[in-house]
């Protein structure tokens, strides 16, 4: 397989030219909203050392489900405003979900002697998150059948 195989449609537009300030602006704003939502969830649902980090788990899985929905709508259904994907995708959902807290949580669980919980959390988040993306994509494609444009990203 070629090293330069490119996935169609996804990020071509983002690579052309210098980053325009409006795009950075909406990404920043979206990031703030997403992060505050994550922070609110984590504050409302704290976990003590050695216990399963439910807030982070739910945050990441929910965010993955939502990005599946968003990507179908943005790329296959709507003629969306060009700032909508950076705002919602890169900004809100990127700010909402987190990889650093995920790895930090695993480290903390191991340090607290909860290795089994660490492994369950590590694998559980991964499986649930990828499943959630797939579910978001599939359900949205089913729901919008007949409304899709020709520049779809669906393959089979």
């Amino acid at each position: 397989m070629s090293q330069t195989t490119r996935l169609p449609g996804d990020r071509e537009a983002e690579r052309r030219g210098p980053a325009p300030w409006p795009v950075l602006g909406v990404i920043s704003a979206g990031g703030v909203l997403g992060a505050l939502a994550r922070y609110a969830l984590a504050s409302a649902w704290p976990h003590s050392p050695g216990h399963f980090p439910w807030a982070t788990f739910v945050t990441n899985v929910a965010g993955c489900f939502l990005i599946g929905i968003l990507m179908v709508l943005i790329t296959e259904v709507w003629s969306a405003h060009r700032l909508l994907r950076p705002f919602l995708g890169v900004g809100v959902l990127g700010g909402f979900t987190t990889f650093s807290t995920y790895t930090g949580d695993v480290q903390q669980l191991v340090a607290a002697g909860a290795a089994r919980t660490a492994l369950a959390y590590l694998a559980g988040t991964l499986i649930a998150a990828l499943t959630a993306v797939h579910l978001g994509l599939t359900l949205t494609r089913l729901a919008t059948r007949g409304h899709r444009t020709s520049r779809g990203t669906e393959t089979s």
Partner: protein
Amino acid sequence: MTALFVALGAAIGAPLRYLADRAVQSRHDSAFPWGTFAVNIAGSFILGVLIHGTSVRHVPGSVYALLGTGLCGALTTYSTFGFETVRLLEQRVRAYAVLNVVASIVAGLGAAFCGIAVAEALWS
């Protein structure tokens, strides 16, 4: 007030992720999502430092909120990681999907542990 620090950190972290992703992908034009990989690893390292720093009371709560919850939280992403992985699977580029998962997790955990170690060296 803590929420304000989270917001400030995120306001910087999210566009930083976008710019870093563009910079990395423009230099490594491949189906493998190097950009997301890079920011996730970097953020995991930084948060590792902050986590230990907090536990030995060297990092105040406001700084953790700003750089940890805010910056690292917005700099890193699980949704883009998940989406890119699933897209690679849909496009039948299965090897890259598996590689993305394994590399991100191994390197991410490694970075977190390294961050802790560096902080221990600095602050204990």
